[in-house]
């Protein structure tokens, strides 16, 4: 299968300046695009690295069916910066500026799937920032979560939190 994928390769060479290092790793996105990365990048992705370790490094083509070719370059870019020790506030601000809500969520899930702790922490903060000062309805819509409290649960919850909503503008009260 590895040969099949590489034959339709659309490669993105991350580091061309390091020919002496060991073989590159091929990451295959869910839509069958191959991204060639240095082993050091793969190391940042715990899921990928443990896969490589499992097979004693014999397999270097890794299918990532849950990650699209749209998202993978962002992940690789972040890992690259991370290795270079160049994750600054400025870089993160620029990085996140390019991303809409959907992309942030997809990248978050990708970071979770690949188990990249730093990226996951960073995106957790981005998501928290984007749902800050928003209504319950907004947060539900953001995550696509249904309000599946039973009427009994909801009544109990209203009772427990009733006081937090007293003295609020009528608008806010409607929201809750």
């Amino acid at each position, binding site marked *: *299968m590895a040969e099949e994928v590489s034959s339709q390769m659309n490669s993105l060479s991350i580091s061309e300046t390091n020919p002496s290092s060991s073989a590159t790793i091929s990451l*295959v996105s*869910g839509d069958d695009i191959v991204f060639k990365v240095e082993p050091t990048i793969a190391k940042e992705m*715990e*899921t990928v690295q*443990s*896969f490589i370790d*499992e097979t004693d490094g014999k397999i270097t083509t890794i*299918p*990532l*069916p*849950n990650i699209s070719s749209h998202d993978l370059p962002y992940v690789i870019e972040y890992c690259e910066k991370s290795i270079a020790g160049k994750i600054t506030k400025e870089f993160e601000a620029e990085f996140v500026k390019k991303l809409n809500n959907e992309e942030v969520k997809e990248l978050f*899930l990708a970071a*979770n799937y690949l*188990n990249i702790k730093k990226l*996951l*922490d960073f995106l*957790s*903060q981005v*998501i*928290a920032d984007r*749902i*800050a*000062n*928003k*209504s*319950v309805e907004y*947060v*539900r819509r953001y*995550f*696509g*979560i*249904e*309000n*599946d*409290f039973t009427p009994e*649960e909801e009544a109990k*919850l209203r009772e427990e*939190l009733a*006081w*937090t*909503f*007293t*003295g*609020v*503008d009528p608008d806010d009260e409607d929201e*809750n």
Partner: protein
Amino acid sequence: MASSFWSHVLEIEKLEISPKPNWLELPRDITINILQRLGTLDLVTSASVVCPLWWNICRDPLIWTTIDMMNNVSLSHTQFAYSTRLEKICRYAVDRSCGHLKNIYIYKFGNNDLLYTIAKRSSKLRCIRLKECHEISNDFLCEVLKMQPYLEELDIYHCYRLRWFVFEYIGQYCRHMKSLKYFPCLKGDYLCDYVAFVIGKTMPELRHLTIFKNELSNDGLLAILDGCPFLESLDLRGCIYLDLDGSLGKRCKEQIKELWLPTDSADHSFNISDYIVSLQLKSIHH
């Protein structure tokens, strides 16, 4: 990890497109990682009531180790019930933390009783930040400090009734102070060098110090530099009686990595009319 990975490999061989993960199926700690970054107001009034799973996750005291009520913008400041409501939310969060509270940040509400209750319920506070909390007084803050031997960080920003007097007790009760920031409402406190001597004597572990608009002299600053060998960040803006042209200025630059000079621009002047409005609101409310 590896086994879950193999299952994905099988998926691609079958050319199946994996369904988008449901947010509610994420591991609990991943959701906690997001929720614990929210301000307390968002947690109580929004995130915790999103769905039964999140309600349940918000039962975890670890979500409440930091009570951050600095960002209260979604509430109108002119409502009489404003501070009462914030206080209730704060007390609710303190209950939820079950004694695990470490950091408490309060802006524009709160009183002696609230602060005292927090200190009584949580014996391991690490950081207290108070901003424009005009109802909290010196005596009560001292009582609170007495109960918090692990406190490392204290920020006091424009709290009308918290004066330099409190400095005498900070280091005495909290032996591990690492960061102290003080922006007084009024300048011209007479204790200036005395405060500096107290800092030098009682806060040997200090890393950061902001003493804004303090009228201390070179003697006082020297006592701080001698007494706080780990000090690496020092904000002296508005301390206009210091003369840093000579050897003391040189020593400052050698010892301190991050230095704000007395003449550096300082946009932190206290607006007395804000305070008067808050008093008026309070009297109407009572």
